[in-house]
């Protein structure tokens, strides 16, 4: 390798990997000029997505979701609580998004990632505003007992599009959720009905009908990256770090806009760009819906 004497274009003189690390922006822009992304995708295409339901045996509902190499594990544990006074016949969902130190080099034990609480909040807001879940379905005995669903999402591998993956895994886990059959004992405490003596016990389960949640309008999301005139769907962590402007759009299954989120960034998002993003999201929603349906039907076959 010779010593470059011109400070301009070094790409011909360097190995690809070195160029990628030293001049990430140039590296990406040269790709964009060729209408292709470093991983070989065209601009508008999202990465391969897969959903595996029931990954955690110790939880009531769980899902492992992968978008590209971003991997998230969501699991729901159901516990019983006394409902709040202002809403005696409603249950509750507590959503928490964790980024354990394994998922990314920037997270260290005792120093949680900045992104985690942000995604947590976005998730809770999105799921609340989508009206996907009727909290009344989580009620057991009005004013006495209701379900508290703890939905914990762990990011196992962070490679961009964290919110999209988290939302998809949350939705998948909720669709997989099996509410355990319970009955009331003499003390007014809720107890589990075990499978074998379910017949012999005279008591009726309190939630005979309500073993699965009806998910009304399911929210799906797509994050797009705006750079100059390009719109890149579903960016990887590397793309996110090089180019700043992100737009996340959440639509429900009937293509209603649920939320739109653009956290700063240098490029102003023009209305036309947003329109394009929404169009991309619309396509993506169809894809995700079919992936989710497939996963659900695969579970039923088993």
């Amino acid at each position: 390798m010779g010593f470059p004497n011109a400070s301009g274009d070094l790409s011909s003189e360097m190995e690809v990997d070195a160029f990628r690390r030293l001049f990430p922006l140039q590296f990406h822009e040269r790709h964009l000029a060729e209408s292709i992304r470093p991983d070989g995708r065209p601009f508008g295409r999202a990465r391969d997505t897969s959903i595996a339901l029931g990954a955690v045996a110790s939880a009531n509902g769980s899902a492992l979701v992968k978008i590209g190499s971003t991997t998230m594990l969501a699991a729901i544990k159901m516990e019983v609580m006394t409902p709040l006074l202002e809403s005696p016949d409603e249950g509750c969902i507590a959503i928490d998004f964790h980024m354990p130190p394994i998922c990314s080099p920037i997270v260290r034990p005792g120093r949680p990632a900045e992104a985690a609480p942000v995604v947590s909040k976005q998730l809770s807001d999105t799921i609340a505003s989508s009206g996907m879940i009727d909290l009344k379905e989580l009620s057991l005995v009005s004013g006495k007992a209701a379900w508290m669903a703890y939905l914990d999402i762990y990011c196992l591998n962070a490679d961009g599009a964290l919110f999209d993956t988290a939302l998809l895994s949350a939705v998948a886990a909720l669709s997989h959720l099996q509410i355990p059959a319970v009955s009331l004992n003499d003390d007014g405490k809720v107890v589990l009905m075990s499978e074998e003596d379910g017949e012999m016990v005279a008591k009726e389960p309190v939630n005979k009908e309500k073993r699965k949640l009806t998910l009304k309008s399911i929210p799906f999301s797509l994050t797009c990256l705006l750079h100059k005139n390009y719109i890149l769907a579903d960016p990887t962590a590397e793309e996110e770090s090089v180019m700043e402007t992100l737009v996340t759009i959440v639509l429900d299954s009937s293509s209603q806009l649920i939320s739109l989120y653009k956290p700063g960034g240098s490029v102003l998002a023009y209305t036309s760009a947003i329109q394009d993003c929404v169009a991309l999201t619309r396509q993506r929603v169809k894809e995700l819906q079919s992936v989710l349906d497939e996963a659900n039907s695969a579970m039923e076959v088993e």
Partner: protein
Amino acid sequence: MAGKAGTTPTTYSPSPTTKKTKAPLFKDDDVDWVRPDGRGFPQCRPAFFRSGAVNAASGSAYAEFGNTKVIVSVFGPRESKKAMMYSDVGRLNCNVSYTTFATPTRGQGSDHKEFTAMLHKALEGAIMMETFPKTTVDVFALVLESGGSDLPVVISCASLALADAGIMMYDLVAAVSVSCLGKNLVIDPILEEENCQDGSLMITCMPSRYEITQLTVTGDWSTPKINEGMQLCLDACAKLAKIMRSCLKAATDSQE
């Protein structure tokens, strides 16, 4: 709804209806009880390893032994914390944590300090620390689901992740535990067995060098029994290391 989570009322997980005491897992002198998952006493659960599970890490591995599922990432060697003084050998930093849904009752998902210390001790003897002076290697483990023998699985998985990261080691570290139930020694116990064990023995060793890096014993053991338990573990470690080695080999083959 989720916004209310801050003022969460106290919750409990519903317990089974009938409070009948569970039939003991085994009877004291009964030699031919069957293990809950139908294995023989000296039989390990089928082990599944996969390296390279997390692409943001320098090296990583996923291990699944029955219901015990563990993922380990290795970062580094990278710059030590600023406060650290100069050191001419490398540093090893470990952390083991559980997910909130790893255990049958919902936990806090906090760090497991005991396991963190044990993992550190089990690995430090195997790593050639002098090959990365002034820097730190971080080994972070997350137990996705706890199904018994968590620590041995974490240790084996961590050594695989270290190998995947290309950290120089004298040998792979394999770990196996046995539980003592009455008169019987059962290897690679599941959660139920661990909960009623009379004693346990865990060995982490470097099979090719035939050296033990970490050993813990609890409960009442006579010398012949310790001998027997150790031999059982060492044999199992050797077999486990073979599986780990073939996993690494498969990974490199597929890369080529």
